[in-house]
């Protein structure tokens, strides 16, 4: 049986792991390769690296980092942040990443999803969707959740799946950073609208939240960052607890 995946997310800036608290203050959370190794040993099913470095020069640091990570760990990992072309994706895949995640660039140019899926296969194309509820309607936001668009989240999720995305990384901006639980209803609706896997992100603060998003939000995977970095939730313990609740989990 296919298991539910637990995915730690590492925000990367200039080759280091950082975590924004309320998207502003960036605290250093350590060496990404060390963290990746630690998470692999603790039983993480997959890793996501989000690069928040801006300049081209610093992107080269990212390629070096991807190579180091790929040689250090033997579980799948995704790289996202600032990817906007076939060449970007080719460089990352040949450095050893398994999947890439695109977000703002897909909204700006939806054809990019088709192009990437055709070139590299759907299995390595993750589309990240940042969603925020505005007056009762869920809208896609871009640029780290700062820029609203007119795309409704469910409609966009269907579109990216039709265009060839292999997976959706759904972040609820309303829940992100709150540690009050994942967005159950939104995740469930997106999951029911598409036939590709959905990773829930934003709001996971304790073990019960993870059980909830798998049982009631129908998520295929759940992603979190700081609670893992600062060991507020320990992956091995989390997975044991989820298995006790009859969820399919790789132990």
């Amino acid at each position, binding site marked *: 049986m296919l298991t539910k*995946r637990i995915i730690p997310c590492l925000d990367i800036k200039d080759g280091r792991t950082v975590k924004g608290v309320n998207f502003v203050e960036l605290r250093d959370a350590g060496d990404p390769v060390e963290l990746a190794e630690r998470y*692999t040993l603790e039983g993480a099913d997959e890793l996501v690296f989000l690069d928040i470095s801006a300049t081209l020069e610093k992107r080269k640091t990212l390629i070096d980092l991807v190579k180091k990570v790929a040689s250090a760990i033997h*579980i*799948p990992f995704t790289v996202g942040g600032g990817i906007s072309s076939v060449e970007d994706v080719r460089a990352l*895949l040949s450095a050893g990443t*398994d999947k890439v995640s695109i977000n703002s660039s897909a909204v700006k140019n939806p054809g990019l999803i088709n192009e990437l899926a055709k070139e590299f296969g759907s299995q390595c194309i993750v589309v990240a969707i940042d969603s925020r509820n505005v007056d009762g309607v869920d809208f896609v936001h871009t640029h780290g959740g700062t820029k609203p668009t007119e795309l409704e989240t469910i409609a966009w999720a269907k579109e990216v799946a039709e265009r060839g995305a292999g*997976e959706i990384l759904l972040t609820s901006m309303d829940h992100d950073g709150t540690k009050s639980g994942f967005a159950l209803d939104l995740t469930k609706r997106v999951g029911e609208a598409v*036939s590709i896997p959905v990773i829930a992100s934003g709001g996971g603060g304790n073990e019960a939240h993870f059980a909830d998003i798998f049982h009631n939000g129908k998520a*295929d995977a759940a992603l979190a960052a700081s609670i893992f970095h600062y060991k507020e939730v320990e992956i091995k313990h989390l997975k044991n607890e989820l298995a006790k609740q009859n969820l399919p989990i790789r132990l």
Partner: protein
Amino acid sequence: MKVAIVKYNAGNVQSLTFALNRLGVEPILSDDPEFLQSADKVIFPGQGEASSAMKSLKEKGLDQVLKSLNQPFLGVCLGMQLMCESSEENDTECLGIIPQKVLRFDSSEVKVPHMGWNDIHQLKSPIMNGISEGDYLYFVHSYYVPVCEETVAVAEYPMAFSAALNKNNYYAIQPHPEKSAEAGMKLLDNFLKL
């Protein structure tokens, strides 16, 4: 030991190379028929789409070469599917090493691609030595080989399908051993020891 990785348009081999390095092997990426024929082991990776992968193999004349090798051969993921008779993916005629048809998962029944860690059972091949019934490997695929005479490991999603195949010197594995933590490393190590 001379380990060759088949070079064509559907192989992203960096992770596989790193995994083999960890096992003390420096694989050589090659599309040279003579080199492939002389290697001690041949690994046939693959990701992407079946018809363009077959086209690339034919252009290089590798389709005939791969079918007639005598040393231990390991197809991975799309590589395993290409070893079969044909694939529903763009109605592609494949290498025909394993006389089976590759089918698509029904997306009205399950999420496609089948992506993530799945347990494997009914293990019966030396490449499964030291791997336990119920161990997990990492899968990413939209097409599958049904359970057949050549099946040496079964996974369920939710119906049973082939997680691994073996016919003579030809071995194949649907999940990615290079991404399957310790169990995957064990499988690669077993293959190298054949």
